[in-house]
C-alpha cells in the first residue's frame, strides 16, 4: 500500500537505524506527536485493553477527517500512539481505513518491542479502526 509522505519518511528513517537503543529513542521522541488525552480524561471507554500499562485513545471524525487524541503512562506506548497519529490524524476517513498494521511491521518498530508491547500496539490499532468505522456507520 502507499503511505502519506510523512509516514513514508518515518518508515525510511526507522529502517535505516540498526541500533535498538536509537530506535527506542526515536519512538520516545514521537511521544510528543500525540494530541494529548490528559490522564484526567482517561476512562474505561478510552482504555486500550490488553496493554500492560495504561493506554487511552479517543477517536472522533471532524469534517470527514480522523481526529485522534491519545496518552499513556509509558512513553514508549505513547510513542507508538504518536506514530499512529502521524499515520491517520487529520486524514480522510476513507483513506485512514485503508491502513493495515503492516506499516508498523515494515518500519521494524514492532520487533524493537517485546511481544506483549507489540500486541498492545495491535490492540490499540484495532480499537482505533473499529471506532472510526463505527462513527462512520452511525
Amino acid at each position: 500500500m502507499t503511505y502519506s509522505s510523512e509516514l513514508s519518511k518515518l518508515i525510511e528513517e526507522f529502517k535505516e537505524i540498526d541500533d535498538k537503543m536509537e530506535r527506542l529513542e526515536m519512538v520516545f521522541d514521537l511521544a510528543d506527536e500525540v494530541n494529548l488525552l490528559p490522564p484526567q480524561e482517561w476512562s474505561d471507554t478510552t482504555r486500550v485493553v490488553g496493554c500492560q500499562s495504561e493506554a487511552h485513545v479517543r477517536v472522533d471524525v471532524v469534517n470527514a477527517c480522523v481526529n485522534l487524541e491519545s496518552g499513556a503512562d509509558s512513553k514508549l506506548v505513547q510513542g507508538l500512539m504518536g506514530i499512529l497519529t502521524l499515520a491517520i490524524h487529520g486524514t480522510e476517513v476513507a483513506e485512514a481505513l485503508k491502513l493495515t498494521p503492516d506499516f508498523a511491521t515494515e518500519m521494524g518498530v514492532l520487533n524493537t518491542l517485546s511481544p506483549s508491547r507489540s500486541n498492545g500496539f495491535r490492540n490499540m490499532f484495532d480499537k482505533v479502526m473499529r471506532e472510526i468505522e463505527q462513527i462512520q456507520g452511525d
Partner: protein
Amino acid sequence: MREEFPILQRKINGYPLVYLDNAATTQKPASVINAMNDYYANSNANVHRAVHTLAGEATEGYESCRTALKERFNTDKAIITSGTTEAINLVAHAWGRANLSDGDAIILTEMEHHSDIVPWQMLAQEKNIELRYVPVMEDLTLDMELFESAIEGAKLVCVVHISNVLGVCNPIEQIVSIANKHGAKVLLDAAQSAPHQDIDFKSIGVDFMAFSAHKMCGPTGIGALLVTDDAFEEMQPFMGGGDMIETVSIHGSTYQTNEQKFEAGTPRIAEAIGWTEALNWLSSIDIVAEHKRILESARWLANKLRAMGMNVYGRHDDHDAAVVSFLHPTMNSEDLAHLLDARGFAVRTGHHCAQPLLDRLQITGTLRVSLYFYNTHEEVESFVEYFSEILERFA
C-alpha cells in the same frame, strides 16, 4: 528416516536396539532434541508479561506450540497440559465438577486406559454420578447396541480412540452422532490416535480431545486438551496460580479468558518448543502411507505369531494401530520380555494400564509389540526369527 533418531544407533547388550514399545512412548528425532537444547543454551527465560529479548523468544517459542497444535488439529482452543492424564483430569475438574451433579451418568468403555477411568471414578464418588461401562465384545469391538441403550440420560461419553492394548480403532463418528442426539458431550482419549492419524478436531465432532507429546515424537511432561468453544465456556478454573489470572486481590480474583486460564504457573516452555518440532516432523512425512506400511508389518507379525501358537489379541483393521498384543500358551510374558531384551528387542508386558479390558478378556496382561514410523519390516522379521529361537530353547 532412521538416521534422524539418534537412539536407533544404540546397542543393547551388544545388539542393535529394536525398539518395539512405541505405544508406551516414542523416540525423538534430532530436530526435537536440538530445539530444546537450543532453547536452554540460547533463549531460556520465563514467559509472558516480560520485556527482555530472551523472555520474548521464550514466549514466542511456547506460543508457537499452541499455534502448531491449532493448525495440525484444526481447533480454536488448545490448552497445554502435562499430558493426556492431566488433560482428562482437567475435564473432570474444570468441566465435570461444574456441570455434572447427583444422578447424572457418564459413559465409559471397558477399553479405557486407567487415565480415562480413575478420574471419573473419583468424580462419581464425590458427586454421586453413575458410571456406565460399554462392554467389549468377543470380536474386540465395543458393543454399540448396549452403548445406544446406555446413552439415555448420560451427560458425557468418555471413549478411547484407539486402544493401547488391542490397537482397535473405535467408531467415533457413530459414537458422536448418537451422543449428540442425546445431548451428551464426548471426550476423546486420543493418546494413541493423535500420533498415527491426521485428526480434524472440528470435523470429528467431539467436545474434548486429550493426547500426549511423548507418544508422537515429542518430549515428556507435555500434552494438550483440545476443546470446543462451547465446552470451553462451561469450564471453571482448575488449578490456581500465576499466569491464569487477570487480577488478584485479597478479596478475590478474576481469570484469563483464553487457554491460559487453565495453565497455572510457569509453563512447560522447553517442552512446548520440543513438541512444536515434533509436530513439524510429523507434518514432514506421509503419515497415511507410513501408517499403512507399519500396519502391514503388524498384520504379518500377528499372523506369524498365530501360526506359532500364540494367542493374539487384535484384529488389525485398516484404521487400527500397528500394535500386536499376544500371549504364549504357557510361558510367562515377562520371562519372554527379559529374553528378548537380551538381544536388544524392547517390548512391553503387563496390564498396560487397562485392567478392566484384561478382566473382560480374562487375562492379567499381554506381551505387546507396538510399531512406529521409524520401525522397519526387517526389524519385525528379526523379531519373529529370534522369538522362534527363544521358544525352541526355552519352551
